[in-house]
């Protein structure tokens, strides 16, 4: 009996070791690139650390500073939430609409696909600078046309109430990535289901509601979740837009105003970089990073629960 027990224990140990060996690439990756940074971020959020001298415990000092004193945190948080809610929603709706339109087109499909997809290939910095030029309130072609038509000429990137809508416009212009995904999923919906629905007397709206949507719901959830993650990482476009519009892009040695105009283009990732790698206030930067992490978790969990994850109704 003893011999059999020992053998069984040995086998279990061997099994465990083998399992661990198979899991080791994942364990190593997750440990190094997720768990360690996460634990380190939590640790440093309670420390005063400038990247040069050893860290010193400060308790909740950094948390209190970020939430109660740091003047850029709340505007950046509001802007980030605005971008998540408005830009992600509009991008998903617009991407779906363009996808539906493209699959319906009979002639010149290739041209339209290329036209809608091409902007998403533009480098963010170049695209933002081009938009800042196009939307320039004094001399930009868009405002010139609006003026000739007798329409209001917004300040776009120079006006706090128009800067985020201008960023939204730019995000919609680069809808190509989502359009391709939606187009593929729309083409994947079984034709028989549409035919059956038509036989049952379903109109266009009913077919979309009861056939298209259930089939593409995992793609909608995917688009929303990845959109939320992208919106949380929104850095380059608002930073460049603010710098170009404020005229401070070429200045060396200048104090740069964050989030021009009036902090309206400030996002949380900009704060993480500013605090962490310009002011070297690692503790405060970690607090902002943890807020971003918590927000991403909450938004992703809400979307995954409501949208039944990445599974279709049939799955």
């Amino acid at each position: 009996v003893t011999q059999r027990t020992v053998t069984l224990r040995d086998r279990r140990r061997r099994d465990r070791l083998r399992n661990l060996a198979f899991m080791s690439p994942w364990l190593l990756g997750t440990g190094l690139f997720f768990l360690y940074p996460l634990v380190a971020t939590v640790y440093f959020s309670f420390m005063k650390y400038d990247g040069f001298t050893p860290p010193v415990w400060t308790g909740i000092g950094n948390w209190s500073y970020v939430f109660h004193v740091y003047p850029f945190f709340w505007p950046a948080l509001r802007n980030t939430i605005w971008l998540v809610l408005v830009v992600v929603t509009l991008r998903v709706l617009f991407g779906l609409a363009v996808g539906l339109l493209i699959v319906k087109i009979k002639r010149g499909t290739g041209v339209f696909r290329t036209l809608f997809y091409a902007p998403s290939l533009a480098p963010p910095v170049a695209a933002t600078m081009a938009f800042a030029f196009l939307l320039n309130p004094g001399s930009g072609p868009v405002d010139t046309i609006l003026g000739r038509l007798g329409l209001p000429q917004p300040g776009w990137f120079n006006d706090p109430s128009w800067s985020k809508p201008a960023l939204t416009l730019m995000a919609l212009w680069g809808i190509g990535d989502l359009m391709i995904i939606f187009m593929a999923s729309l083409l994947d919906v079984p034709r028989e289901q549409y035919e059956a629905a038509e036989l049952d007397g379903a109109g266009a709206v009913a077919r979309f509601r009861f056939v298209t949507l259930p089939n593409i719901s995992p793609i909608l959830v995917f688009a929303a979740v990845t959109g939320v993650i992208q919106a949380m990482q929104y850095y380059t476009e608002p930073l460049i837009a603010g710098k170009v519009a404020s005229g401070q892009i070429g200045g060396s040695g200048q104090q740069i105003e964050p989030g021009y105009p009036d902090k309206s283009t400030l996002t949380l990732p900009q704060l993480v970089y500013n605090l962490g790698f310009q002011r070297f206030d690692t503790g405060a930067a970690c607090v902002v990073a943890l807020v971003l992490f918590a927000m991403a978790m909450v938004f992703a969990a809400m979307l995954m629960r409501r949208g039944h994850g990445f599974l279709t109704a049939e799955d």
Partner: protein
Amino acid sequence: MPRPHRTVVGTSVAILIALTGTACTGGTGGGATDNPNKETTITFWHGWSAPSEIAAIKATVDAFEAKFPKIHVKVVANITDDKINQALRAGGPSAPDVVSSFTTDNVGEFCSSKVFADLTPFLEKSGINAEKTFPAALLDYTRYKDDQCTLPLLSDAYGLYYNKDAFKAAGIASPPKTLSEFKADAIKLTKSKGDTYTQLGFMPDFHGYETTMSHYAALWGPHYFDSSGKSIAASDPAITAMFTWQKAMVDTLGGFAKLEKFRSTFGDEFSSKNPFMTGQVAMSMDGEWRAGMIDDANIHLNYGVAPFPVPDDQASTYGKGYISGTVVGIASTSEKQNAAWEFVKYLTTDTQAVVNFSNAIHNIPSTEAALVSPDVDQDPSVKAFVDIARNPNSNTTPSSPNGGAYQLTLQDVGYGYESGKVTDLQSALQKADQQIDADIAQAQ
């Protein structure tokens, strides 16, 4: 599924905690123990990028290497302050030994974080009296408290550029010397057309490139902090007077909305589309480099330079202006600090080296001896800025442990006040004082 073994979990957590505790802690090692007479190569990082500037650096380095044949200098150009801060913290063999920065506002941060070595022992060893060698304003922005962690490497002075043709057309005989004369001239030079301008006398907005809070405030001689380091913007009459004057200028010249709309038509500050160079504005506050840029652009602009006008009640101080510049220091992680010092000493105190370098890149010399050297460029525009730099009333912004964050906070008050969003200036300045003190406390 079997639970992970306790030992595995325990070991992992221990490793994580150990890694966390030691993560990214750059060393403060280095020191001045190297022999500068031994064959060695030091690395010098700087931010200049234009071909003429790179050539000037090369000429300076060549002259140094001829004088100190055993010290070789490896030059790395186009370096920003972000890169400097990150590299000095990371350390390692690729990190620089000598570093220069355009951002004098960051000196407080460089000194207080100890990423730059204190140069006081080196100055003493070489018998250099910093107070006698460098103008007072330049010494102010190169140190934090008693830590002289950088030295001035050329300087920038700010003055008034004016379009002589526009002055003649408006019947103005000479550049204004007081702010009331300046206001009257700006009005005369402004030509409105509907909701825009065909020519603006002066762009007073805080976003008008060099018309920043600190550059304006220098005309009043402000005090940003008291002796204990507390922010006193609200109680300093100079700062209140500056904001009040600037707001009055904005209102007089057409109002914030109209000026901002016109400002959005301006080209890049550091290009030939600069509004003063295109004739969009007739007067401009700018640094000495603009004269070189105008000459290089070959646009035949008939311009003059003068000190910026001063407040009427300080008319006797006419000739002063805001002073800034480039700073140079030694990385505290450097293992070759003695050799690095020889290079820094040459760059900053050798009169001929300073003069040659300033002439080559159209900057102002940064030592007392170089400022009076007959070899300094005798072009009238250069001379005007040399005089501003030498003026005893010229001043700069004090260094702070969190760099120029306090200037941004005050500038933010200015943005609100000029646009009309802030109406109670005193209350806004009091809040700014609290914010500045809290930010500095967080940085210390």
